[in-house]
Structures are given as C-alpha cells and as structure tokens.
C-alpha cells in the first residue's frame, strides 16, 4: 500500500479510532449535560429527590469533611509557625491559615473528598441501576431517567459543595487557631486580628465560585460515568474508577484556570 506497511496502517487506524471514540465521548457527555441542565430548569420539579440527594451527597459527607478540615487547618498552623518563624513573621500564621483555606484548600480538598466519598457512590449506584435494568424500567414507565436520576444529583452536587467547603474552612480555621494558640503558644489576639485584617470578601467569593464549579464537575462526571457504565461488575468497577480519577483531575485543572481568572478579575 504505497510503501506503508500493514502494521503502520493498522496503527494509524487504531489511533484514528481512538481519536474518534474520544471525540464521540466528549460529544455525548456534553449532550448529556445539556439534557440534565434542561431537566433541572424545567418542570416537573421533584424537591423530594433533591432533598434525598442533598442528604446523601451533602449531609452524609459532613463528618469526614469536617475531620479533614480540622487536621488541614492544624497542619497549616504547624507548618506556618515553622516556616514564618524563619522570617520573624509568625504573627501572620492566622492570615496564612485563613487565606489558604478560604481561597484554595477548602474548595479543592472538599471537592476531592466528596468526589472520593459520594462521587464513587453516585457512579456505582447509577451503574448498578443500569445493569439491573432499573433505568430501562424507568423508561418503560415513561419516566425520563435523566430527569429522575441525574438532575437531582447534579443539582445536589452544585448546592452541597459550597456548603461543605464552608464547613471545611470554618472547622479548619478553628483547628489552626487551636493548634497555634494552645499547642504552639501563639497569642490568640494576634492570630485573629491578622486573619481579620488580611481576609476580605473577595477571597470568600473566590472560594465560593470554585466550590460551585467543583460541585458542577462532581455531578456531571459522576452521573455521566454511571449512566454510561459498561455491563457487569467489571463495567461498574471501571466506571467508578474513571469517575473518581476524571473528576479529581478535572478539579485540579479547573482550579488552576479559575485561580488565574479570578485573581485577574477580583484582585486587579
């Protein structure tokens, strides 16, 4: 074939097929997202289903998020005292803990925790519903699975993520404050006054907008991977792993771009 070996042609074919599959997957996931957003915005609304998902994704994640928040704040305080003492700036530990948590670590670590805990559960649940024909059963009963299953989960993710990040930040600041003042003997007035002086509402907006975006990514990826999972235990296993990995990587990538954009928009 014009000098090209059969192996080369096969390799090019494989590459082409992979590119086509990836493009098709992207297209499908965007169509899926569009359908879910339309379902969220148009009646019939099912508040009971939304509350159930808020319970499962939000309320049931509170303890683990608070626990991680507490220790993240505590570690930040310990590291802050150690690092800032080299510059004679330990007074700024409160600022460092608060700004790090509000602007960055709160939204990101909360998102990673929720993706690991609830995202995998959402994908596995939807995948199992698919392979046990529950999704087909919904359609046979003239119920749109996107409206009934996906819309409440995506919306719950968008609502729950900022609330959980808020809890993470609040508990984290308390953890940092406790360690800095009780264990590292820092003056509590200094910790709080420096924090108060350095944090303003734009930092909170920054964290809030990030949390909303991460909640959106969480819901979109978890629902899409569950809805399109393959058959059998292996299919669900693969979908769950892909869901957690894809959402986690997406959160970190989007975090970089959002930070750059928000710094430019809010702080210049």
């Amino acid at each position, binding site marked *: 074939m014009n000098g090209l070996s059969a192996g080369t042609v096969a390799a090019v074919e494989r590459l082409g097929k992979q590119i086509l599959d990836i493009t098709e997957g992207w297209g499908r996931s965007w169509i899926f997202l569009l359908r879910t957003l339309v379902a969220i915005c148009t009646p019939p609304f099912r508040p009971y289903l939304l509350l*159930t998902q808020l319970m499962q994704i939000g309320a049931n994640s509170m303890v683990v998020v608070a626990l991680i928040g507490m220790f993240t704040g505590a570690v930040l305080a310990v590291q802050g005292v150690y690092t800032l003492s080299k510059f004679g700036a330990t007074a700024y530990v409160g600022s460092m803990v608060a700004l790090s948590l509000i602007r960055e670590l709160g939204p990101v670590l909360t998102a990673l925790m929720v993706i690991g805990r609830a995202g995998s559960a959402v994908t596995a649940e939807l995948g*199992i*519903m698919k392979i*046990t*024909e*529950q999704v*087909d*059963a*919904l*359609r*046979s*009963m*003239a*119920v*749109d699975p996107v409206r009934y299953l996906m819309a409440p989960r995506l919306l719950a993710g968008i609502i729950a993520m900022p609330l959980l990040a808020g809890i993470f930040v609040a508990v984290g600041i308390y953890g940092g404050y406790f360690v800095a003042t009780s264990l590292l003997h820092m003056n509590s007035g200094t910790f709080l006054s420096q924090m108060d002086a350095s944090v303003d509402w734009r930092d909170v907006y920054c964290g809030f907008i990030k949390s909303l975006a991460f909640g959106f990514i969480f819901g979109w990826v978890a629902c899409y991977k569950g809805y399109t999972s393959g058959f059998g235990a292996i299919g669900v296993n693969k979908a769950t792993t892909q869901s957690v990995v894809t959402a986690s990587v997406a959160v970190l990538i989007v975090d970089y771009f959002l930070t750059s954009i928000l710094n430019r928009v809010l702080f210049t």
Partner: protein
Amino acid sequence: MIVIENVHKRFGSQVVLNGVNLTIEDGKTTAIVGPSGVGKSVLLKLIMGIMAPDAGQIWIGDDNITAASTEDERNRIRGRLGVLFQAAALLDSLTIYENIAFPLEQRTKLSRQQIHSRVEFMLTSLSLESYALNLPQQVSIGIRKRVGLARALITEPTTVLFDEPNTGLDPLVGQEVYDLIRACRERWRFTGVVISHEIPEVFQVSDRVAMLLNGDFRAEGTPAELRKSADPAVQQFLKGSTDGPIKIQ
C-alpha cells in the same frame, strides 16, 4: 394489536434481527422463544421503544413507536404498556408499596387517596400485603417478580411484556409465576408478549408461539402446531437436544 414489520437490528457486524415480521393479536398471549442470544430481549426493547431498529416498523395499536420522533411521543405510546423485567427491576430505594405506586404517581394525575386504594387492591390481589413496607432487597426473587407484575399491571395497560418471567427461579416459584400470569390475564384481559426459552413451561400461558432463530422467525403457530412442526431446528429446540441444526454458541 402489535405489528412488527420487517425489523432489522445489528450491533457492529453482528446481525441480530434480519427483517422479522410478527403480528400479536389483541387479547392473546404470544410467546417469543428461541435459544439464548438470538435477540429476544432486543426485540422486546424495540417494542418498548427504548432501543431503535436499524430499519422496519413496530406498531402498537394505531401508533408507530419506531416513527415517534420525541421522547414525549414514545412515552405516550409506552403508557399503554406494562413490563415485567427479567429480575423485576424494582427501584432499590423505594419500598414494595412505593414501587407499585410509582407508575401511577409519575404517569397519572390521580389523588393520593385514589393511588392508595389502587395499590392496596393490587397488594391484596397478588398477596403482597405483608411485604408492603419492605425494600426489594429484603424479599425473595419470587416476591420481587410478583411486585414487578403488580407494578406492570397497576396502570391497567392494554399490553404486558414479560421478559423471561421465570428465569432464575426454582421450579415451584417459576410455576407460581406462570399461574399468576394466567390468573392476571383472565382478570385484566391484556395482550401478552412473553419472552422465554423455558420449554414447555411457557406454553401454559401462550395462545401462540413464535420461534426466533438466526435473525428471523423460524416457526409460528399455536403451541400444538409448534409441537407437530416438521422443522428439525424447532424439534431440536423443543426437545432441548444438542444434536441438530442449531449450533450451541
């Protein structure tokens, strides 16, 4: 009446249905039988409109479900169907009562009281009263099948589709399910389509039988006619023999 006209379906290079034609008469129960993997369940999904054929048409009464362009239109046609899935496909998060009430809550504008009385009636009719508050995973597969049947019948559909109704059941429970289907058919007078490879058990509930093989209907008739068929493939399948033209995949 359900009319299947020249329906084709393939997955990649594998041809599953190659121009199948079948008429399912009103008030009768037709069994679609055949070895595993010949496309029986695919045909059922095409009838339900949750899968689209590559070519051909499927009429449910006066409506062509394959020509329905929107999900709303398909849902309107599906409103006349009830389906008992292979493993019942009950919603895990709902109780037995809620599963049975589900189609009425989603599809109709009945009041809470009207829904309650219909669900209570169905629970009593299928001897499910004591399981009403259980979750599906807390009851046996036989009970789940009964609940699936109750859910399929609660909207009083004109046609009920049964996908392998006694697969995975022991002979006693399997027989109970067939008895139940027969009793329900006499009571509600629906048109039935039963997908099965359980021979001869499925003949108990069938007025007509159509055997699917190699992408097309190989034989069709009453159970008695099928038993007398001279086709060696039909005889091999009915006898469950490994010797004959049907190659085991």
